[in-house]
């Protein structure tokens, strides 16, 4: 537990000292969403239909854009070796890395969502569901993305491969997330989608750290 907190604290500190880089994915998220009213149509009916989908796609791409940073600098400067040689349980340390990444990239996305939802004329009653799906979904994006990064970090140009590996695994989250919001807007119950997303989150939380640790061991050797 001490090691979990120490690693989490270090990553948050590093993120704070590199604030500029962090703003990148956040800015990307805001720009993508705010261009839609300009490019498609400013009419509120049209926008509100697409709102949930657009915000979800933008969140997914923003995560994909920032995910490689989770292990890149650790791999380059040798701290990853030190982490892997630690006697502490590897999944716990990996969970700390992913938690730090989510806190600095996933959480801010959720926090600006109300603003973007207003821009996209998303009905107020659907906003809660959208936030909830993002809250359940973005940690999964970080966890699954980290597995992909762990597998490709040793390759010279792993960027494209990372996208190909991770995108198919992201699609269920995207489908359920956007679909839940659409369903609320036409007055259907969304407990099914939300439960499923929660189940995926629990599954990812328990299994992904194991997979990340194992993949990193392969990547550094």
């Amino acid at each position, binding site marked *: 537990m001490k090691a979990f907190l120490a*690693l989490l604290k270090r990553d948050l500190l590093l993120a704070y000292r590199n604030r500029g880089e962090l703003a990148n994915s956040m800015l990307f998220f805001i720009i993508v969403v705010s261009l839609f009213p300009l490019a498609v149509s400013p009419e509120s009916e049209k926008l509100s239909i697409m709102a949930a989908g657009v915000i979800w796609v933008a969140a997914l791409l923003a995560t994909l854009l920032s995910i490689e940073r989770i292990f890149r600098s650790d791999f380059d400067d040798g701290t990853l*070796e030190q982490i892997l040689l630690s006697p502490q349980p590897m999944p716990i340390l990996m969970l700390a890395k992913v938690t730090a990444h989510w806190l600095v990239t996933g959480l801010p996305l959720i926090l600006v969502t109300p603003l973007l939802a207003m821009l996209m004329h998303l009905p107020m009653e659907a906003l809660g569901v959208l936030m909830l799906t993002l809250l359940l979904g973005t940690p999964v994006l970080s966890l699954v993305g980290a597995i992909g990064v762990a597998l490709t970090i040793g390759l010279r140009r792993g960027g494209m491969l990372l996208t190909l590996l991770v995108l198919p695994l992201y699609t269920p989250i995207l489908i359920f997330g956007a679909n839940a919001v659409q369903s609320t807007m036409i007055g259907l119950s969304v407990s099914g989608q939300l439960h499923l997303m929660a189940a995926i989150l629990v599954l990812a939380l328990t299994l992904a750290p194991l997979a990340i640790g194992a993949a990193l061991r392969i990547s550094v050797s």
Partner: protein
Amino acid sequence: MTAYLVAKDLEYLRNDRVLFGDLNFEIRAGEALQIEGRNGSGKTTLLRILCGLINADSGQIFWSGQDIQKQRYDYSINMAYVGHHDGLKGDCTPIENLNLSHALSAAERKLSAHEALEQVGLKGFDHQICRTLSAGQRRRVALARLLISPSKLWILDEPFTAIDKSGIGELENMISDHVKTGGMVILTSHHDMNLTEIDTERLVLGQNS
């Protein structure tokens, strides 16, 4: 029970060529092992195998009689590795770096980060961001990591890179002291080591290929 490390029939292939094979050695408390060999003879690879970062193609490594692949915890708590990379975060101070590696090591703290830095000759650099330190100073911070944990076995890959002459003398003393107090050191170095007071064995790689 005194600790010891045994390497048995280690073999490693690179691009279907035997980098080294039939490697057997043993190191006990109070001994040092210097690995020598030309560039590309597999020194770094051997050290990475010894710490468990890479798997050998065949052969086993035993720590106090137990295979390190099966008893990873026992081994990693007793082993400290300083590799080619310093393993330091450029955006953190030496103190922050050392405190993190201590938190990761799960062992009792032998020296505080401040004391360790003083011992490697970096007094007064506690709170300077590592990126602004010179290469030699960063190397010293990396080596200070060895002092804060009570690890018995030190595995050092070219520990003297970028370190000045007087610094090398101090570090040789640090290594000698560690060995004399029952520690073990495995290292590679192109520098002629002045470790006369302690029992140093030599292993030369790449002679048979």
